[in-house]
């Protein structure tokens, strides 16, 4: 019995240490980013374009570029991923395509982001001749976001209670009508979450965009021009030996982190709020 008590105490001690260490890491990083970022932030940082190799001016190119690339990528991936998720959820038992697609999405979600970058560079930039452009970057990022949307949509739709679907069917609805009029309505909070999560994930990625949408000191003027983005801005600016450039890197990191974290928070809040109207 003594031994069991000792074990218990030991475990509790270890757990306490572990949790404190984990939370400690989190707080240290967040505080560091916030401290450096807030001191570097200013209005000119947000609305000016960079000059003089990142030593002057602001981050407008990266902010606008990030918004464009992520929005476009999420648009592409959601328009394909949501229907795919719906199909997989409804037909997993029946269709081989559904099972294969589910497996493929699983595999895709584990692929390292640089591999997407290589893929996008070879296929979109070189073979499809888009050049280093906003469009190529958005398409590459869409490939990366696709599995997230498919998996979350699939999970959400699977949670829709079958009794509502059966009720609709018993009233004579076709498969499609049940899907579009009943299931989707119930799944909207989950799908919205999927889209927002994918957007936040996409906004934080740098490796896939390094060679596909490149970098530019200007805001993109068309779909085929190169575009900067916040993660790459952080990377390039922090590698410069000038303290002014480092300041801009902290500011960019801060803006990026705030953007991503608030998207994540939004998606969770939205889910909770809209779930109230969903039949359980």
């Amino acid at each position: 019995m003594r031994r069991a008590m000792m074990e218990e105490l030991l475990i509790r001690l270890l757990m306490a240490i572990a949790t404190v260490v984990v939370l400690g890491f989190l707080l240290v990083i967040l505080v560091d980013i916030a401290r450096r970022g807030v001191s570097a932030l200013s209005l000119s940082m947000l609305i000016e374009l960079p000059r003089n190799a990142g030593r002057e001016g602001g981050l407008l190119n990266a902010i606008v570029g990030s918004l464009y690339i992520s929005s476009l990528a999420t648009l592409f991936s959601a328009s394909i991923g949501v229907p795919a998720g719906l199909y997989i959820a409804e037909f997993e038992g029946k269709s081989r395509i559904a099972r294969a697609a589910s497996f493929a999405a699983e595999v895709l979600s584990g692929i390292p982001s640089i591999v997407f970058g290589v893929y996008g560079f070879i296929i979109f930039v070189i073979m499809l001749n888009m050049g280093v452009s906003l469009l190529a970057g958005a398409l590459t990022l869409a490939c990366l976001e696709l599995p997230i949307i498919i998996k979350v949509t699939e999970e959400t739709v699977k949670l829709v209670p079958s009794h509502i679907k059966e009720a609709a069917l018993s009233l004579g609805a076709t498969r499609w009508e049940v899907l579009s009029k009943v299931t989707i309505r119930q799944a909207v909070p989950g799908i919205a979450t999927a889209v927002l999560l994918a957007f936040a994930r996409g906004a934080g990625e740098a490796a896939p965009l390094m060679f596909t949408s490149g970098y530019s000191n200007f805001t993109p003027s068309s779909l085929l021009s190169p575009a900067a983005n916040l993660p790459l801005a952080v990377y390039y600016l922090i590698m410069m030996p000038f303290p002014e450039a480092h300041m801009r890197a902290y500011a960019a990191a801060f803006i990026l982190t705030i953007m991503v974290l608030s998207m994540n928070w939004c998606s969770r809040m939205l889910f909770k709020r809209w779930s109230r109207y969903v039949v359980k």
Partner: protein
Amino acid sequence: MAVSLKNRSTFFTDREGANPRSLRGKIDKLSSCFLAIASISSIFVVSTIAALLLYNFMKFCEQGFLPSILSDVWLPSKGEYGLLPFIAGTLWITAVAMTISLPLGFLTAIFMAEYIPRKMHSPIKSLIELLAGIPSVVYGMWGLMVLVPLVRDQLAPLIGGSLGKVFPLFRVNVNIGFSILAAGIVLSIMVLPIMISTSEEVMRAVPMEYREAALALGATRWQATKTVVLRLASPGIFAGIILSFCRAFGETMAVLMVAGNVITVPSSLFDPAYPLTALIANHLPEMISIPSYAYALLTAGFILFVVTFSFNVIARLVVRRLKRMGQ
């Protein structure tokens, strides 16, 4: 996201509902075609990625570079494509990251699932999910600004001077801060939220009755957890470990900024390393000019793909088996 329930769609299988010749029937058929086509997208993307990587790997082998793949000589202009330094670098860094994050994550997960007071659960869980959302470049930046000087100025002299004299693992061969240790620590912080949230979710899903039964038989909290919850949750926990491994294995930006990018096979925690992902990131644009360089870089990509793919599949298989055994 909650654990998804099985939802067998048998009620869609034997449909004699809509008349296929009516408008509603046609829409029904068309729409399911459209949805199927959309799902094919994921299959299409995966297959093209796999095909691209495989094709270049085959070309790499054709040119006779395969035997040299495990050599440590990387001299592209002389046709030497030894990937050993990069493979070793990736493995070392991933190993350090897993060594740090496994115990920490596991213990925290148990705490969150079993021991935590009700009120603290939600805020702490949100905090940990916050960690998961931070982009990897930001981690890399933090690593560069804080961790690298820390390793160089404090940890290396301290550990290298003491443990380093006894164990070659801790020896400081060159003290620049950019090291496997720094990269491993950054990666472990990135991977912790995944470990914690998957393990915790799975543990929470174990019904209370099992725990209550153990406690009623006189077990302490920990004994109940150990014998009941962990055993039932082990498939999920294992899957979480695999997921974390894949994430650490494939991370690019954070290690690019912190690992040092030196082409040698590392022999100590304080040595710099050059992971496969950093190799591709640094040299991708040039590969267009030199075809065999392209084959080598894409072979590195192929290795990354194959490893993450296999671990994913293994995880799924083991989870299925463990689940069946558990029942």
